């Protein structure tokens, strides 16, 4: 599991946490905080997707549907029923998880990866079309606005505000989600769940012959993965406060997220974080290029697949693998 997690994964999460704790004390303007918040949300999204795509090894291409489901579920419920977003984001995650398990069932029967890709992609299109056509509820492509921001919370004497003009509050929510999700997922994957997922990825038939119940483990992975993605979608909804079906479940989202995962490192635990950081920041720098950014992302995916298929995360281990290998050589010589 070393190549998936690197040498000290808990230490890496601690480093990320410390870096995020420092951010509020830096003299950053709201625009930078906004980009960092988007990065944190997309990093969680990409990490959730990477669970089925990279760690379980199923070529699922429709996770933007779970992002949309989580976003719309939380936004709609909080808007129409007046329930606090602090509660509805969990509802978004749960509904996304249920959707994930439901779409997991047909995928269990499909052995061919291109078919898995097509089925999941088609599922995402269905979700997008349903959201566009339920105009009475979602206002379709006109956009669903009036999503309530997170309710203010007071800690001690200070009150943290969220929503427009309160960049810090949203950053804090995204940061807590980022650290929490990565920490919990790491604990899950360092246990027998991770061992089993990787065994299924590397040799499904062999894993099954060793007693691994494929169907149960795959559905579990789908549920967890969709829940994480749904949670990131819900937090996104209460941050940007307006949703359109094509912005959350459209092809742009698909390509951006796949680019983050591939550039960062498919199947590497920390890969999607690097990818999300690089692409969120560069996407802001390239804002002037408009839709041509997608062309650039496409090119980036192609370049990485050919030149560095293990992504950014795969570049690093090469340097610390060398000392390890030379250390094991004397043992071999004896």
């Amino acid at each position, binding site marked *: 599991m*070393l190549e998936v997690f690197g040498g000290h994964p808990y230490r890496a999460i601690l480093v990320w946490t410390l870096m995020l704790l420092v951010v509020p004390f830096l003299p950053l303007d709201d625009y930078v905080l906004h980009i960092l918040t988007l990065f944190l949300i997309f990093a969680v999204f990409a990490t959730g997707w990477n669970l089925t795509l990279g760690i379980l090894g199923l070529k699922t291409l429709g996770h933007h549907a779970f992002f949309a489901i989580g976003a719309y579920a939380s936004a709609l419920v909080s808007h129409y029923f007046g329930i606090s977003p602090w509660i509805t984001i969990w509802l978004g995650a749960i509904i996304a998880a249920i959707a994930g398990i439901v779409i997991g069932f047909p995928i269990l029967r499909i052995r061919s990866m291109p078919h898995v890709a097509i089925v999941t992609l088609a599922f995402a299109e269905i979700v997008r079309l349903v959201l566009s056509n339920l105009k009475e509820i979602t206002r379709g492509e006109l956009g669903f606005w009036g999503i309530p921001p997170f309710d203010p919370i007071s800690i001690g004497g200070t009150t943290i505000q969220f929503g427009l003009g309160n960049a810090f509050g949203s950053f804090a929510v995204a940061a807590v989600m980022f650290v929490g999700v990565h920490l919990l997922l790491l604990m899950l994957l360092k246990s027998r769940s991770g061992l089993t997922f990787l065994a299924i990825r590397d040799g499904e038939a062999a*894993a099954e012959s060793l007693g691994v119940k494929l169907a149960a483990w795959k559905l579990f992975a789908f549920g967890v993965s969709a829940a994480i993605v749904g949670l990131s979608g819900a937090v996104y909804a209460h941050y940007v406060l307006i949703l359109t079906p094509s912005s959350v479940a459209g092809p742009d989202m698909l390509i951006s997220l796949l680019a983050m995962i591939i550039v960062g490192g498919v199947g590497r635990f920390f890969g999607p974080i690097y990818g999300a950081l690089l692409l969120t920041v560069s996407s802001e720098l390239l804002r002037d290029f408009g839709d041509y950014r997608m062309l650039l992302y496409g090119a980036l995916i192609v370049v990485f697949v050919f030149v560095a298929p293990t992504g950014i995360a795969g570049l690093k281990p090469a340097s610390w693998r060398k000392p390890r290998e030379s250390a094991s050589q004397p043992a071999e010589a004896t």
Partner: protein
Amino acid sequence: MAADFLRVEQLTVAFGGIFALKDVSLSIDEGRTTAILGPNGAGKTTLFNAISGAVRPTAGKIRFLGEDVSTKSPSSRCHSGIARTFQITQPFGSLSVIENVMVALATKGASMAEARREAATYVEFVGLSAKAEDPARVLSTGQRKRLELARALATHPRLLLLDEVTGGVDRPSIPELLSLIRRLREERRITIVVVEHNMEVLLDLADDAVFLNRGEVVVTGGMQEVAGHEAVRSIYLGDIDAAA
């Protein structure tokens, strides 16, 4: 009693219109080592796949310890005591050697620490302790075969199906591999069914033999007796010549 260990009853496996196995019946006794012989395409691996659950029989039944397991999944057959290795080895490449073995233990509910402790004993048994922390993908073919053996043992099998254990293994390593297999039978009382092309290996290892040709059983009996059979000699002599 002993005859009820593994019974294959009129097993037929067809892929489309092609019969890989046709009306195969055989029984394997507990504690013995049985060789499955036959030329390429005789249905040896298909028989393994049918017993381990990787392919569903078109007709017929497989009974293990008196229970009909014909429609059970490979994982539940593993839990009832059937383990196998693969002709083309399937290591979990991104996991280390010891983690490969831990998969079998963790799936039965062992904690990671327990699994690691027990896995170490199997890794040691097959002689891969020095490689325990290396990723499985860097192993040589012979080491991969031994890893498959360690993984299969970790499932605590009563019946072990070995598909081409010496295939692709360099000749000097073969005797060591065979002594491992003999120890399984002697120390752990594991019943072994082995598919193998190397006749010397089989004469050395197997008590009984089943000779398949074109998906049908031609001869069954003691290993020496089957090896001496006319049909076996005519097909297998070529192999012996090639090996020598």
